[in-house]
């Protein structure tokens, strides 16, 4: 019998279309599994079985009637709880918004529903996509199924956990300073931050307007491409949205990497920061594998990692504070300690420093894109370290800045985090691939070649 828990979108879609898999049975199997497992992992803030079952019945009747809508028809998905779904609270995992019922679907949710996707519920997040892991909120933090009781990364923590635990094959996350790619890296799944403007952010609670992205999270690259295909497109009501044609993201997936030129950003993890040795080795080994597959891999230099980090932190703090200042004035005690600290930080930044951070961003972007001029894509680490016990507050604070994802929030380039092996203790390691603006298809092509050569995605957490 097929293991429905770890069935991917592509395979499930084929079975559903051929009527070998019923969307109703598929949905029910995942609802049952979630009910059984989630008191341990806390991936969901709100599971919506009634909504899911009704949508699955509708999908099934459409498919039986010969009206198959495409690869997402009958496929369960879940939303990070800063993304609006009509009639449900969007809480941002915070007491501040505990009664904040959304009037309409965010366009990303509406797009998934329109192609027949089955909404399973709202997923845990770090509070307002910035705190966390926190134990002083109305809901517990999501827990990584890899390791004993480990940190899943964040802020799209529930999305990473639900995928890794086989509760759902597709989830949405958001990424302002790395929040799709961090849980992808720590939970051993696949997460893409698309180009800034590629996917609508309307109906998604902002963290920092100029750095926010919505991104697809899945277990495999092929599934990720299928999900982005539905999400990508211009939204004239999102001021950051780009009116750029959407290509077929699956068309070149299997073309391989022969002849491609890749830039290895080694200084990020050997000089600017020292990555955990097993993580650094995983990137070096990934570069070797891509060479063996026919790519030309050479080292490139970008700006120092701490420059991107300072730029990102200043912008996030100021924009987040501007969004939260009224709530902070009225209800400071309703925030968890971590989110309150990180958002309050913006109150102390001068307007001139914020403007200079935006000017610094333009400079960093120009120089980064110049360094990418002779290559098809870049590769480097996502996290410097593997995951750690979630209750270890010191490890959490230490790990928070030890990452190389922020550069591509600054530049807006597409970047994906994919599994790149495991530590000797069995914890996920990851690889980050970065493309030119709007060239997600190239990122997927390289990621797919690596995934096929390594098969890391075939491993699942022990006992699951």
């Amino acid at each position, binding site marked *: 019998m097929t293991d429905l828990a770890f069935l991917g979108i592509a395979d499930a879609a084929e079975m559903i279309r051929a009527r070998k898999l019923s969307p109703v049975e598929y949905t029910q199997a995942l609802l049952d599994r979630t009910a059984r497992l989630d008191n341990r992992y806390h991936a969901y803030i709100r599971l919506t079985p009634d909504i899911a079952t009704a949508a699955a019945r509708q999908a099934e009747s459409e498919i039986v009637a010969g009206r198959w809508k495409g690869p997402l028809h009958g496929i369960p998905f879940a939303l990070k709880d800063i993304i609006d779904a009509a009639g449900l609270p969007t809480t941002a995992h915070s007491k501040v918004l505990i009664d904040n019922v959304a009037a309409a679907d965010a366009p990303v949710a509406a797009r998934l529903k329109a192609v027949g996707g089955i909404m399973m519920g709202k997923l845990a997040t770090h509070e307002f996509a910035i705190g966390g892991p926190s134990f002083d909120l109305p809901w517990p933090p999501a827990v990584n199924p890899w390791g004993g009781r480990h940190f899943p990364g964040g802020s799209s923590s529930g999305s990473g956990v639900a995928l890794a635990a086989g509760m759902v094959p597709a989830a949405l996350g958001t990424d302002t300073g790395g929040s799709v790619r961090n849980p992808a890296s720590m939970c051993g799944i696949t997460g893409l931050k698309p180009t800034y403007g590629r996917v609508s952010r309307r109906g998604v609670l902002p963290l920092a307007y100029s750095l926010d992205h919505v991104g697809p999270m899945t277990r495999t690259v092929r599934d990720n491409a299928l999900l982005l295909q539905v999400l990508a497109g211009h939204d004239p009501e999102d001021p950051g949205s780009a009116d750029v044609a959407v290509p077929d993201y699956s068309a070149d997936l299997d073309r391989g990497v022969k002849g491609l030129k890749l830039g290895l950003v080694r200084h990020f993890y050997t000089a600017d920061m020292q990555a955990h040795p097993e993580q650094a080795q995983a990137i070096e080994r990934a570069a070797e594998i891509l060479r063996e597959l026919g790519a030309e891999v050479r080292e490139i230099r970008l700006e120092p990692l701490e420059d991107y980090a*300072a730029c990102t932190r*200043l912008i996030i703090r100021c924009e987040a504070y501007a969004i939260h200042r009224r709530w902070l004035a*009225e209800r400071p005690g309703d925030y968890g300690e971590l989110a309150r600290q990180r958002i309050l930080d913006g*109150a102390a930044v001068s307007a001139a420093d914020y403007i200079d*951070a*935006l*000017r*610094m961003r333009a400079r960093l972007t120009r120089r980064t894109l110049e360094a990418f001029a002779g290559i098809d894509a870049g590769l480097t680490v996502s996290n410097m370290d593997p995951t750690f016990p979630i209750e270890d507050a010191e490890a959490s604070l230490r790990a928070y800045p030890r990452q190389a994802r922020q550069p591509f929030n600054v530049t807006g380039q597409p970047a994906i985090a994919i599994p790149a092996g495991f530590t000797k203790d069995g914890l996920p390691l990851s690889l980050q691939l970065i493309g030119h603006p709007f060239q997600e298809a190239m990122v997927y092509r390289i990621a797919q070649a690596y995934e096929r050569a390594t098969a890391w995605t075939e491993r699942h957490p022990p006992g699951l």
Partner: protein
Amino acid sequence: MDKDRAEEIATAEGLTKLDEKQLAQLTQSVASARELAGKLPKDLHWSEEIALVFRLPTPEDTGR
């Protein structure tokens, strides 16, 4: 010193409901903001403009 600055900010920003612990967080924010400001480039030329997100609709966008 940072505590005085934090109290000034709290008053100016209307953050008057912060308790002692929350005010201590704001004091920490003052130190952190100073540290981050120190990492901004010192050689930004006036011609280096901000990275723009805001953009007015073009005639093509509006069909006029």
